[in-house]
């Protein structure tokens, strides 16, 4: 197994938010002690509800935000501080695809200029080389030269997302973080964009972190999946294993909510109770108020993420940590 391109080690990020005019600031732990690794050419899907900290984790993985504690290492070196010179030059090696492509584009510039902007920023190539790179990038993402001359508002949502991908890939990055890249698109367009990402990744050997709340999309694109709940990873493994045989009760509820074409409708696990609120974390296992299997131990003690099998981890008191136990469940 090759060395990881990106590794997060026990990273924590806490925000403070204030309620009302005279309210006391409340600490909100968006990400709490998460460790992850991404190897070159691998796609890691991160699944979770809103408020689970998956976007914050994506931002820390890219170095856009520094963790409060823990460390992020990119290609063996520590992630430089945001805004520093070395951080800037690292931007060409790690790029981001956003949820809202219209918001991420400058509406006053033709999109071709914006696609070429990373080259200008990092001083790569001369004018002719840049124009050629822009043309290649447009073609690679399935856009025509005519699309390049248009303004962002003259393109459709899917085309805009292609523009964002073209811009992100023009510097030939090694890591791409996609933060909900398709959740604002129509289902038919979603498939096109996801397929484009899969093709590009296969072609270029990109490492990718794919953040989404949509399990079907994540299943399609990722080799490995990490499920997050209230800032913690509750389960991690290959996409195949996690989705076929979920161990954590939360993952089971997620998987049962996503229909599989061709399979018989299984027993659905319907989650009850409040959606998670990071400002008011339950004691013990954060999932216990909604967990159908919760015991007294879950209310009192926080489960740790334990290794079940090579590359397979879960955080739940109810899982017997033996391969036999897994099978029995």
């Amino acid at each position, binding site marked *: 197994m090759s060395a990881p391109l990106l590794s997060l080690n026990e990273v924590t990020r806490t925000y403070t938010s204030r309620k009302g005019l005279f309210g006391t600031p409340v600490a909100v732990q968006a990400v709490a002690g998460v460790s992850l690794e991404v190897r070159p050419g691998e796609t890691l899907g991160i699944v979770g509800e809103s408020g689970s900290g998956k976007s914050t984790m994506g931002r820390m993985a890219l170095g856009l935000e520094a963790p409060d504690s823990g460390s992020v290492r990119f290609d063996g070196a520590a992630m430089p501080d945001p805004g520093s010179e070395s951080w800037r030059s690292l931007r060409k090696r790690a790029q981001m695809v956003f949820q*809202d492509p219209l918001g991420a584009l400058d*509406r006053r510039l033709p999109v071709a200029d914006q696609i070429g902007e990373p080259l200008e920023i990092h001083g790569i190539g001369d004018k002719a080389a840049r124009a050629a790179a822009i043309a290649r990038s447009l073609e690679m993402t399935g856009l025509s030269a005519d699309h390049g001359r248009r303004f962002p*508002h003259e393109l459709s949502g899917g085309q805009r997302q292609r523009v964002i991908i073209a811009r992100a890939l023009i510097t030939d990055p090694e890591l791409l973080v996609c933060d909900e890249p398709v959740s604002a698109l129509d289902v038919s367009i979603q498939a096109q964009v996801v397929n484009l990402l899969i093709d590009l990744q296969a072609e270029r050997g990109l490492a990718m972190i794919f953040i989404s709340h949509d399990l079907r999309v994540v299943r399609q694109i990722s080799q490995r999946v990490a499920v997050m709940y209230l800032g913690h990873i509750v389960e991690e493994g290959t996409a195949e294993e996690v989705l076929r045989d979920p161990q954590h009760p939360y993952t089971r509820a997620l998987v049962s909510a996503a229909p599989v074409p061709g399979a018989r409708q299984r027993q659905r696990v319907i989650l009850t109770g409040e959606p998670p609120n990071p400002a008011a974390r339950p004691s013990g296992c954060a999932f216990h108020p909604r967990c159908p299997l919760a015991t007294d131990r879950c209310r009192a003690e926080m489960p740790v993420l334990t290794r079940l099998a090579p590359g397979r981890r879960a955080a739940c008191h109810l899982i017997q940590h033996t391969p036999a136990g897994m099978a029995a469940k």
Partner: protein
Amino acid sequence: MTDMLAPSVPAKPARRRWSLPWYVTASLFWVGLMLITAVFADLLMPHSFTALDLKYRLVAPFQSLAHPLGTDELGRDVLSRLIVSIRISLLIAFGATLISAVLGTTLGFLAAHFRGIVEQIVLVLADFQAAMPFLILALSVLAFFGNSLPLLVGLMGLYGWERYARIARGLAIAASAQGYATAVSQLGAKPGRVYLRHILPNIASTLIVSMTLVFPEVILLESGLSFLGLGVQPPMTSLGNMVGYGREYITRAPWIMLTPSVVIVLTTLAISLLGDWLRDRLDPTIR
């Protein structure tokens, strides 16, 4: 019925760039005329603007070929004085508007970029400027430091900067929240590039409209100061200065005061109309 259905047809007319509304054409013409007058004032003046002609005092307009717009109480040619006045007033107004726009926008961007203490200082300064009657500030500065054209331009340059600062700060913060500025800085761009290449063009339309609002006010302010005798000093002349000294003759020789007044009104009106039109033109989404 057909009228109601018509807009639903995806009619995308070719972008007609040069069909201007008539009032914009008229405004452009007037502002162009004023600029030409200001630049070529020396060539256009029929007489020296200080030349006395005591035989022809208070000649009404259109009475004499030598003095088409009449003469004032000392027999000076009103047309020549008007031409020089336009040059001086436009110089002050353009200079001051530019200074305040650059100063205000820079401070606004600094506030938006650094936030924290820098932002607080800029905002307190802006509040202070807004709370202080500018005329009183101008009067005290001119009273203490005497009077010269550069000082006057610099002083006027302080007028209205707080508006640009507030606009620039608010829009820059909004732009960062919107994403395109964040997206570009995530590509590794330095703050200078983010602000000058992306945020400034995006908010320029608002700033330009704000400039066209401040510009007439500066002309009027200069006129007011000159009227009070604190602006441009004789023998130099400006539009406000002419109005101020012409008021004594308003009943006997109204043209001395009315000609510069008409120029002030038309110029400020033309610039306001242009600004309004520019705001719409500068937005690519409603082209």
